[in-house]
């Protein structure tokens, strides 16, 4: 069973994402801030990271940097309301993220993107 780390400070959004991914048979780990996210990246054996950009303690960009260092092979999907911020999107892709899902989003659409990324 594939294990997905969800780093999202909005409890309701993370709950929606978790529910949808569990429905598809994925195992999920939920953390609510950047520090916990970094700890989970170091400690957990994960197959995919879904992260927000604006979070307490550490931003999503810092998390991507950290993940590239510790888990270079783990794909990352960025889920952020900063989709209109060209600079952020470009930076994320330059760091090697697999996908960028802008908010507002549809959890079903996210599930499809997760499936696609994990099959690559």
């Amino acid at each position, binding site marked *: 069973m594939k294990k997905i780390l969800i780093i999202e400070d909005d409890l*309701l959004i993370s*709950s929606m994402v978790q529910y949808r991914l569990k429905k598809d048979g994925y195992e999920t780990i939920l953390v609510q801030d950047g520090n916990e996210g970094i700890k989970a990246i170091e400690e957990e054996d994960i197959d995919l990271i879904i992260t927000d950009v604006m979070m307490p303690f550490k931003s999503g960009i810092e998390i991507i940097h950290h993940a590239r260092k510790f888990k270079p092979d783990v794909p990352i999907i960025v889920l952020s*309301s900063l989709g209109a911020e060209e600079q952020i999107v470009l930076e994320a892709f330059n760091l090697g993220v697999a996908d960028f899902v802008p908010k*507002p989003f*549809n959890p079903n659409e996210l599930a499809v993107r997760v499936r696609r990324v994990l099959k690559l």
Partner: protein
Amino acid sequence: MRKVLFFILVPLFFVGTSNAIGQQNQPDLTDSVAFHDFLIKQNEVPGLSVRFILENKILTDSIPAASLFGFTELTSGGLVSSAFSQLNQFTKLRDTLKLLNPKWEFLIFSQPSSLTASQEYVANLLRNGDIQIVGQSNLSSNDLILLASKLPYKPLAQYKFQVISDYKLFVVTVIIVFFFVMALLMILFMLVFKAKKNKREQLTKDYEFLIVGPLTNLLFEKELDEIKKLSDAEINDIFPATLLSKALFQHVLIDKIIGLNKKMKGDFKNKLKALYQRLELNKVSLGNLKSKQWDRVATGLVQINEMDLIEALSEVKKFTNSPNFYVRSQAVGTLLNLSDKMDLVFLKDQTYPLSAWQQMNYLRIIKFLYQSKELHMKSLFESENQSVRLFGYKLVRLIGLVDFLEDLGKLAPNASDEEKIEIIKTYEVLGAHMQADFVNDCLLSENPKLQQAAAQAIGEIGNKESVTILENLLKSQPEFRLKMILLKSLQNLDSNQFEKFTSIQMDFDTQRIKRHLLDPLLRHV
């Protein structure tokens, strides 16, 4: 001689009179009996005391009340008592020792003195006013002052009475007490407020956890129609009625649903809106509109806008001319967003000026609406409110509504200078060449701002006549900024004429501007 006598006798008379006034009615103390009576009556005379002497007696002899007298033996023989300053006891003490045939002697400041010396001493005290005769009360003010100065200080009243009698001390005491009471009340208030805030925060967190799970399940497990048809019992299973009736729970639930609605798209958005209605949270939003607090009204308007509560639009319309800036802005934004039928006619009647922020906000909404519905934008030009008319001209320019150029052409000649500037900018952006004559007229305006706007626009929409006007204006030596705009417009309209003009006008500014305009890198700077 009479005069001499007068000058001697009159002062003597006054001296005598004043002495008489200053002195007390002195008793005759030369008689020893009267002196004793005086002392007994007076009881105490400062510095004067009396002691008894028993000749040829020794301490072992039986002496009545010996301890009271404090007898000591004299070297010359006999006994001497201690000194008594309470002179009214003199007779009593003397009678006690009567059988022993006592003698007594006066002491002035502990020095044995004769009767005559004592009499003179007392008389002197009386004369100087150093003692007050007991029972004599008709004293002059001088005597009272003298007496008062001799009395040791003793507070007239205890402190607690003094506080009340001294109003300054009383005021200071009241202020200090008030300060302490207020400080205590503030500390108490802070503690209560903080405790309430902490409790509210904790409750909010608890409610969030209670909401997240059921809301997620509901959105994934139920279809849109199923949510619309949820029974009261089903709702009670998801969110117990006891919780749902609490204002804080409703507040957290509304926040969560609206927050999620902003971040979701597709079917989830519709489900959230249906759920909002089914849980009757729309009534809470409508209730907010009835609040007297502007922030609650603004919150209600935001909720109505976010959750598409079309049934509340008639209520929302009432706030479009609210005196509160935020309420007014939010109400207009909500109306424009939600209403299919709503046009811009209501904006025409706004009495408050539209701020730049409001104009930007409305423009953002109108940009998406103008193609899908009839906005009656022309009504903005008819507004009594100049800021609304200016907003209308800006809309024509920013959305590119060339159909309205003709209307602007009719309005422009009678408009104010500020409006003319906005209209000219619109002509410039939309390339309204047919309005060149109007802009030519504005070039000759005495209002420098209008002249600058016209000079700028004429470079884009000018005609032959404009070239002549520009040249004439340039010859009149305008200020540097206007000169630059005029030269740029002249270059745009007729580059040959520009070259010809600048080769004749050799002044420093003209040449500097020319070099700037001909530089391909600097031209647009």
